[in-house]
């Protein structure tokens, strides 16, 4: 695992700020009630895939806390921790994606999406409802339904937006570092 570098410090800071600003953007999906395309989820997946689990987890945690606080004035803790866990899980294979080296191709796309689906399932279908029940004593069927919708919204968002972002970014990076030395 990579060390906690200056770049990670800055990536957490800027990533969190970006996550908070993107929290203000979401498109409700009319055909599935209660579900929205949230670009911030795609951003979190991208940051985790580029910078690894520490940055991913920290942006998920800080970003969600601050975005909740600035937007609603309250923090819904049982949904903060799943976001942090998602950030950590999504970043575990960061070195395999090679986004910054311009190597994010079909194989990596498949792995990226497999990981995001598993991580989302753990975070939103398992962890979030359990925390809702333990912390807030809310009815089980309500929170599991909510969790399932959050799961759906997120895998769609990250599957489309997250993949596109990573593909586009890997192209930008490749073009900037593909200069050959002339003999």
């Amino acid at each position, binding site marked *: 695992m990579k060390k906690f570098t200056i770049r990670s410090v800055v990536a957490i800071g*800027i990533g969190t700020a970006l996550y908070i600003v993107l929290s203000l953007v979401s498109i409700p999906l009319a055909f599935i009630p209660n579900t929205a395309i949230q670009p911030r989820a795609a951003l979190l997946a991208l940051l985790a895939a580029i910078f690894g689990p520490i940055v991913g987890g920290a942006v998920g945690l800080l970003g969600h806390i601050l975005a909740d606080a600035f*937007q609603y004035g309250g923090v819904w803790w049982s949904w903060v921790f799943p976001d942090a866990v998602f950030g950590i899980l999504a970043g575990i294979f960061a070195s395999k994606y090679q986004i910054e080296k311009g190597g994010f191709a079909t194989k990596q796309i498949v792995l990226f999406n497999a990981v995001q689906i598993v991580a989302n399932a753990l975070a939103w279908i398992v962890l979030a409802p359990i925390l809702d029940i333990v912390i807030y004593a809310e009815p089980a069927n309500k929170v599991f339904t909510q969790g399932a919708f959050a799961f759906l919204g997120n895998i769609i968002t990250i599957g489309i937006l997250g993949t596109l972002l990573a593909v586009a970014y890997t192209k930008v990076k490749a073009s900037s570092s593909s200069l050959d030395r002339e003999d």
Partner: protein
Amino acid sequence: MGRLLTYSDKNTWIHRLCGVTKMVFFILWSIVGMITYDTRILLFMFVSSLLLFAMSKTEYHQVATVLKVILFFLLINVVAIFFFSPYQGTKIYGTRSDLLHLAGYYTFTKEQLFYELNIILKYFTVIPVALMFIVTTNPSEFAASLSKLGVKYSIGYSIAIALRYIPDIQKNFQEIKTAQEARGIDMSKNVKLIPRIKNIIAIIFPLIFSSLERIDTISNAMELRGFGKHKKRTWYSERAFQLSDYITIAFILLFSILAMVITFYDGSRFYNPFIILSFIL
């Protein structure tokens, strides 16, 4: 585009408190508010948070937009709880007294009413304190004072960067959005779903990529200035602990312990007026 709460500079004793003091207060306050279902404690917290809110001279218009959003979500949540689990209250309090039969499976019971009132109260104990925490705490002073809690300064610095760059990135977002709108790219709900997603991509991609570039610029600048060389650093906007900080922290610690003792005194986190009532009747 919604609005975010922002710090406003005023001179009250709450503004003068250390950022960390307010954070400790806010965290313990919301944990107690989260754990306890004891109506007496919740009522006490609700009244005192309103008092604190008034003392911080926070004006209604500062928080109005945000408050409306919260109330809207609260309403949805309360209705959803009843819809999914109309007998949660009965289950918790162990008795059942019907008030009104609605339709089919749904009957409105006193226990459910009481349980949902408690949930609403839980929101209202935390909301004023949270709003106040944000509008009275200077972000840079807050990040600086985190080091007092023993938080490593690199983490404090991450938070400082995040708070520092929110307005910049928001401005950046507006600029890109306006520029793209001038080219006929609209991300409002007047557009159908698929083109709307495409338009959002046209706006957030440049935003995300320019921000990722910013990460490299800033970290290079910090590296050049030797960030992280020493174990400690000084902060420009750090504030020393004062008597009022110690008093506030002592109060919140005492209160939290007391609240937990009262809540769990009878072995359950729920205050149950129904059992007491059935003893009397």
